[in-house]
């Protein structure tokens, strides 16, 4: 069914408009030309019915094509917006990561520069030169707890 409709829809719109008016003329003429009244009525009615069908189909097609164009424009605009958003997010992540990394390095430098020289710390380290193994093990277990959840990297 749709194949026939598709083949006929290839015909230009003016053809169906012409067919419609021809059908109307044939129907009108059937009242004056008595000899061919029946064929004119049948032919005219068929022409009007078929042309209305295909004019409707063409109108429907045009409506959907417009919707397709509208959606394509929206999708294209969304892709542009998405890429712009990605650029903004990327820049934000780069900046924040840099700040966090630098801050961490600054704290390590502060430990190496000032904390190790603090009298209180020196005294403490002299009293307890090494951290008990149990504390180190507990720390390491906490640092690797993701492996227990299958997050081994």
């Amino acid at each position, binding site marked *: 069914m749709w194949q026939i409709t598709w083949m006929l829809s290839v015909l230009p719109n003016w053809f169906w408009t012409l067919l419609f008016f021809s059908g109307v003329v044939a129907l009108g003429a059937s009242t004056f030309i008595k000899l061919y009244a029946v064929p004119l009525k049948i032919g005219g009615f068929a022409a009007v019915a078929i042309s209305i069908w295909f004019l409707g189909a063409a109108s429907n097609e045009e409506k959907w094509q417009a919707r397709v164009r509208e959606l394509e424009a929206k999708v294209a605009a969304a*892709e542009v917006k998405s890429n712009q*958003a990605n650029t903004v997010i990327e820049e934000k992540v780069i900046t924040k990561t840099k700040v966090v990394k630098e801050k961490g390095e600054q704290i*390590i430098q502060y430990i190496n520069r000032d904390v190790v020289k603090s009298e209180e710390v020196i005294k403490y380290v002299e009293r307890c030169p090494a951290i008990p193994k149990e*504390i180190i093990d507990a720390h390491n277990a906490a*640092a690797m707890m993701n492996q227990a959840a299958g997050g081994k990297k």
Partner: protein
Amino acid sequence: MNKLILILTLGLASCGTVVPVKQKFPEVPPMLMTKCPQLDTITDDSASLINMLKVVVKNYSTYYQCAVVTDGWQEWYQIQKIISNEVNK
């Protein structure tokens, strides 16, 4: 008459069309795809308090760097959702 109704119904059914426009899944910035690194452990059994402190500070830094990426994912999702909703409106 019944056949005529059936033919008309089938004919009208062809008017229901799916708009053939596909929206591509948005690309994710590659840096959001990086996995969080493993936290550092203290390898020296006789580590001093200072060494332990450095490892802890490094791990805090690692955590916050990873948190930045996670925040980036959340922001990415929220923005992409808004953009996608605008298309489907």
